[in-house]
């Protein structure tokens, strides 16, 4: 397997793209030497976010990046869409709250699984969610 590039962009327009995002994030997480549990947490979080991009954002783009900072390495994944945006961010981050199908664990659950989580959204502005997981 060739090592992943420092950055990769993956369009999210269909079901199978969620799987492609998971696979890309997995290979970056391995390169960043995340433990197996941390790899699994990050891949699971990005799976939730990629599906949100598809389901609620009407599709968008994932960007996966390899990070280094001093002696530690990590992976950043961001998910951008031009969908309707999230009018009430606090509500969307509440466990169990859902606007549609699903169990309302996507955003709040994903946030618990990563080290850094930022959400940039607003009604009519699209949504960008960025997550980072560092090696320990």
């Amino acid at each position, binding site marked *: 397997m060739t090592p992943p590039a420092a950055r990769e962009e993956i369009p999210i327009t269909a079901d199978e793209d969620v*799987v492609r995002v998971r696979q890309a994030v997995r290979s970056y997480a391995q390169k960043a030497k995340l433990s197996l549990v941390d790899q699994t947490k990050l891949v*699971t979080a990005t799976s939730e976010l990629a599906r949100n991009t598809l389901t609620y954002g009407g599709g968008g783009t994932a960007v996966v990046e390899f990070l280094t900072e001093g002696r530690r390495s990590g992976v950043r994944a961001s998910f951008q869409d031009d969908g309707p945006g999230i009018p009430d961010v606090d509500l969307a981050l509440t466990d169990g709250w859902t606007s549609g199908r699903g169990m309302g664990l996507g955003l709040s659950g994903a946030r618990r699984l990563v080290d850094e989580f930022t959400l940039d959204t607003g009604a009519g502005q699209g949504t960008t969610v960025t997550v980072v997981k560092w090696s320990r």
Partner: protein
Amino acid sequence: MERIPILKIGDVLLASIQIDLQDRDVLALQEDLAEKICSSGARGVILDISAVDIVDSFIGRMFATIAATSRLFDAETVVVGMRPAVAITLVELGLTLGEVRTALDLEKGLAILAALGDRTDR
């Protein structure tokens, strides 16, 4: 899309998931299992996820849905072989698998189904 094969062993149906699951694969599995339970009269379903490296909220919810559907056909479902990293992640994600029974491996899963069968009418 790939179809997950369903094997019949006695009155148990075994679905061993060996692929990176797309949402529609899981939906297809749910439908295929319902059909097969109905046509075969199986009393138990085993979902082997020992090769599955992530279970997110959608996939987890589908396992619970499969178990609930099977129960309507008088069949119990046992999810077997969950990897430790998957289990840790599921708990942190906040996902409980509802009333889905789990077992460490296939052998223990079959034992659970056999014990359930003995307790009822057989």
